[in-house]
């Protein structure tokens, strides 16, 4: 393990990331929800916005940009981004499947689902498919214990998974249908 992050230059954003005017308005609204001088509180929400806006992950440039918006030191953003597991600090696929692996889901077969997705997409947990379409991750308890096995993709929870449902899900996402309910 190295203490410093090494991201290939090719993966970096070549231009400085900038929020669209609509997103920027939302960013400003969130900042204004906090009392004056407490805008740092908005950092987690803005990092979520930044991930949505800039390819699903947080490059150094993105984090520096967030620090600039909030008028804090970049290290304060790096500290937060590396603490919380939802933030990806390395490039990821277009869709990230996060399968819950914790006790209650394991009891109802999450291990089999993880293995099935691994074989189906030909990746191991933590890897991205060659076409950069899917990243498979595991997550700790996502609060769907009674509805497991389950996975989260973006903001959506897909619950009561079976192998057949996983097939349907992957096909739908491949076809760009992200609103699928299974």
């Amino acid at each position, binding site marked *: 393990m190295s203490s410093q992050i090494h991201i290939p230059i090719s993966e970096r954003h070549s231009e400085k990331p900038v929020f669209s005017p609509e997103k920027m308005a939302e960013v400003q609204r969130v900042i204004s929800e906090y009392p004056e001088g407490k805008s740092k509180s908005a950092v987690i929400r803005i990092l979520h916005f930044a991930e949505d806006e800039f390819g699903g992950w947080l490059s150094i440039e993105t984090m520096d940009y967030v620090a600039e918006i909030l008028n804090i030191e970049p290290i304060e953003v790096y500290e937060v981004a590396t603490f919380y597991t*939802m933030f990806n600090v390395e490039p990821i696929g277009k869709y990230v499947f996060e399968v819950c692996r914790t006790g209650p889901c394991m009891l109802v077969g999450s291990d089999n689902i993880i293995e099935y997705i691994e074989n189906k997409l030909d990746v191991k947990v933590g890897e991205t498919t060659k076409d950069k379409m899917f990243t498979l991750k595991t997550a700790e*308890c996502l609060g769907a*214990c*009674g509805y*497991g096995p389950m996975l989260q993709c973006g903001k959506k929870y897909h619950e009561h998974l079976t192998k057949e449902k996983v097939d349907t899900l992957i096909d739908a996402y491949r076809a760009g249908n992200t609103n699928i309910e299974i």
Partner: protein
Amino acid sequence: MGRRLLLEHDAVPGIETFDVYRKNGGYRSVEKALKTMSPQEVVEQVQLAGLRGRGGAGFPTGMKWSFLAKPEGVPRYLLCNADESEPGTFKDRYLMEKLPHLLIEGMITSSYALGCNLSFIYIRGEYMWILEILEKAIAEAYAKGFLGKNILGSGFDLDLRVAPGGGAYICGEETALIESLEGKRGNPRIKPPFPAVKGLWGCPTVVNNVESLAAVVPIVNDGGEEYAKIGIGKSTGTKLISACGNLARPGVYEIEMGMTVEEFIYGDDWCRGIANGKKLKAFVPGGSSVPILPHYLVTKTAAGDDRIMSYEGLSEGGFASGSMLGSGGFIVFDEDQCIVRNTWNFARFYAHESCGQCSPCREGTAWMEKVLHRLENGQGYMHDIDLLAEINKKIEGNTICPLGDAAAWPVAAAIRHFRDEFEWHVNQPIESQKRNFGLASVPTLV
């Protein structure tokens, strides 16, 4: 089915909208409190109700409120802890998803009682879609004059915001939640000072669980005494139980405290027994951090009495033969489940979620995870079992926050009740990889 105070209307179509919620008796507690009661009277009703924190620790809510410091000219904050992440617990999610206005109503009434003019709901980042439901509901409440300036002409102002986390179990600890809300890493603070004196941005702060705040609504509507009539002993009122694992009908149930565990697991109105006709092997009644109990201690206590669903009932027998109600994450294991594997799984969870600030938790949780991983994979030794017991004794009580205890208890309990299964893994390393131990352990009741 017993009385339902919180989920009474959860099946009403459109209940997530203001109008339907209001038609079904919503926001009465706000009217009653703001128009007819002083803040102190609301606090007194909550104290009379005997409401205990529904997040896991079970600390009396009214007492927590009475600790809030009230220095002149300093704002106070009420924070709702919606960072539900204890494995086995998904009750707050259900409540917020179905009845967002119930939480908002509880927060308005509670903020009034505590004298807070700015309150936050801190919700785990993975529940982003619920955050959207809440923001929509909050906008409705603003539009209808239940939030904002001079609510219902009472002169009371309240702004309510929702803030997401970023994926960290530790932010359910109240001081970590405050740190996270300040935009920092979720490292729990060193106490004292307690949040009631110095919390969010250095101001007095109360942090309450979603369910506790929602329970304030029926307490104010019907009076604390009425609420206290439901339940048993010091466990008053109703409790949301999120039942999961190998149950025929998992889900979120509202129970009156005092019903038997047997009724809850096997009753037709409730979980309808173990899935696929299998036998019950063990259960964890209050989220992953509370001790696991073997099947012969599930429906009966060690003394042979019926085990009941209440704070006291589930902890009957202490850690020797009891557990805890905790957050109400009710996890049931059938005969095919491996206790060693499950203990390792929970240990991995805590190692993953440790913030890394204090040494016993940072090093200890990771160490336990590694030893358990070896045991589970047939590479353990007999002395590893004692080592585990030693490590968790060394973590317990020595950490900054309760995560250390939460990581230690399940391991200690698993060894206490299922030591033979651990030994089997050591003695039968190949066999243990092929099949499970089942119910081989013969109950010997002392």
